């Protein structure tokens, strides 16, 4: 009897494992299939989706993307704008996050929701307003202009990440440093800064990817000199060159993979999503 029970139990466990595996693979394919199609499209010739795999492989589309669509220049634009957005957002978010995380601020909830507002309202509506102002200020088609537009959605993220980082900073650890004989300056460099550095790094990664991926706000503020990779890719779809567009999206994706890899190696990903435990 006991043997039979064990057999049934094993079977159930196996079944559960089987079910789990099926779910996992479904989820995995659901996320990766569109991506794989783009990847195949970008290296395939004469492939119209009737066969499982492209008949001929080619790197022509990448060559086209680089030469005709001027992708290196556009990638440089995208990175410059992201750098501007990251720098300004971080400079704004450091003191704001410190105040929200460390000080008793009256109306903290209201303040937080105001900071989050640009993220709450539909981006296109917000972008429209930004564009109106920027036309008047001659900020359209300027690196600074597009960067500033991105700050509107990057800074809230940075502020949230940094305020929870600073909030998680244990006062007693700082006190311990003082009791050990460290003055404020040495406490800052030996204790405070190393403890908040992972949080600052995740804030920078967050703002970077947000700016790098941003389409809507760029669409309303870009010009011929400041066109970014997401916008170029979007426009290329309209022009109908699917293969070149696929090659462009592949190029667009590379830095994201790099960032993902970096996050996996350097900082625990669970610190970036949810918790924001800081250290």
């Amino acid at each position, binding site marked *: 009897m006991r043997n039979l029970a064990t057999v049934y139990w094993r079977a159930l466990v196996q079944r559960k494992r089987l079910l789990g595996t099926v779910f996992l693979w479904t989820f995995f394919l659901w996320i990766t299939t569109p991506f794989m199609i783009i990847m195949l499209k970008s290296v395939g010739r004469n492939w119209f989706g009737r066969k499982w795999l492209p008949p001929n492989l080619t790197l022509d589309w990448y060559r086209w993307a680089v030469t005709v669509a001027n992708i290196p220049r556009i990638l440089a634009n995208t990175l410059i704008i992201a750098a501007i957005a990251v720098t300004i957002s971080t400079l704004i978010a450091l003191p704001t996050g410190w105040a929200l995380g460390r000080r008793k601020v009256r109306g903290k909830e209201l303040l937080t929701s105001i900071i989050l507002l640009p993220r709450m309202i539909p981006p296109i509506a917000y972008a429209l307003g930004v564009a109106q102002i920027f036309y008047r200020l001659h900020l359209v088609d300027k690196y600074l202009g597009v960067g500033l537009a991105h700050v509107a959605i990057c800074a809230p993220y940075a502020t949230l990440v940094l305020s929870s980082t600073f909030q998680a900073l*244990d006062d*007693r650890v700082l006190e311990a440093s*003082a*009791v050990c*004989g460290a003055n404020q300056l040495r406490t800052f460099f030996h204790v405070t800064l190393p403890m908040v550095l992972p949080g600052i790094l995740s804030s920078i990664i967050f703002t970077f990817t947000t700016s790098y991926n941003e389409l809507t706000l760029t669409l309303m503020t870009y010009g011929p000199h400041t066109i970014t990779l997401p916008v170029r890719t979007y426009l290329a779809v309209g022009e109908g060159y699917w293969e070149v567009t696929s090659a462009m999206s592949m190029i667009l994706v590379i830095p994201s993979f790099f960032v993902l890899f970096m996050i996996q190696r350097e900082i625990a990903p669970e610190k970036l999503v949810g918790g924001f435990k800081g250290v």
Partner: protein
Amino acid sequence: MSNVMIELRDTSKRYGKLLANDRLNLSILRGELMTLLGPSGCGKTTALRCITGQVTPDEGQVLIDDIDVTNLPTHKRELGMVFQNFALFPHMTVYQNVEFPLMIRNEPQAESRERVMETLRLIRMESYEKHYPRQLSGGQQQRVGLARALVYRPKVLLLDEPLSNLDAKLREEMRFEIKDLVRRLGITAVYVTHDQAEALAMSDRVAVMNAGRIEQIGTPDEIYECPHSRFVADFIGLSNFLRGKVVSSSGEQATVEIDGRLLIVPAAGAAQVGQDWLVFVRPNDIELLPVTGEPIENELDGTVSKLTYLGDRIDYRVALGSALELRVQTDGKVRFAAGEQVRVRLPPASCRPVTE
């Protein structure tokens, strides 16, 4: 060089309407382990923070080693401190944590290494020098905290509820370890706790605090056996309080009438007939006897209303009349059942008048 290491002179600290410290006067002798004991909110932590410099008293002076440090910032006070939540630097290894005070003082590398390893050996953590705090258990973390506080041989060691975050068994082991370490190093230590057992087990002297004031200072046995006030008696150990009036007084003894019964209480000459007294007696000092013959001096008859078995002892509630109930603890060699008539004997030497 006086024999006083730390002195609080009339220090007061106010937080808004709350008077956290009310004219504290406290002298801690060299090499002494002094405990500040009291319930949360009694001001013991504020007093400690006045010593560390994290709080500047509104009035009064703080002296360490005969120097007025009232306005000296924390990092110049040459202290060692152990925290309730350990407060180790999470980004540093055990070695780096312990080395930190020496690094701040720019000690030469070789000497510093020797000192750190010596201190780690003292707390039996030398094999963990490369571990990070999060890889250690609570007890290990606290030992590292202790090493960090002791490594540069500070004048004073401050311990802020260092054992509260540890489990009961470890807490008891660490008590003796800390006490032993402080004794061996001959360092002056201030220990803050709300745990009376910890205070009694560890201290040379205990200062019992209540509502921002020091209620009583004394050795552990003085505090336990001769509490001056109801608060001290109640906070340290179990107590019965009996309210009565002095009916006669003869030098060393006073007779107190409690609810129609007479009780002889030793009095240090101060008893006046007609005074209202509060008499306190510990539950384990009371003897429980079977009812035979007439009760003699300090014997009262009552009924067991409740009993609780506690393993090594039995806790009885004995009702004396309608209003009065005594708590009695015996070793359980002679047992009584609930509802049984018993005679309680309150030995005069164990009865003691206390102030309200």
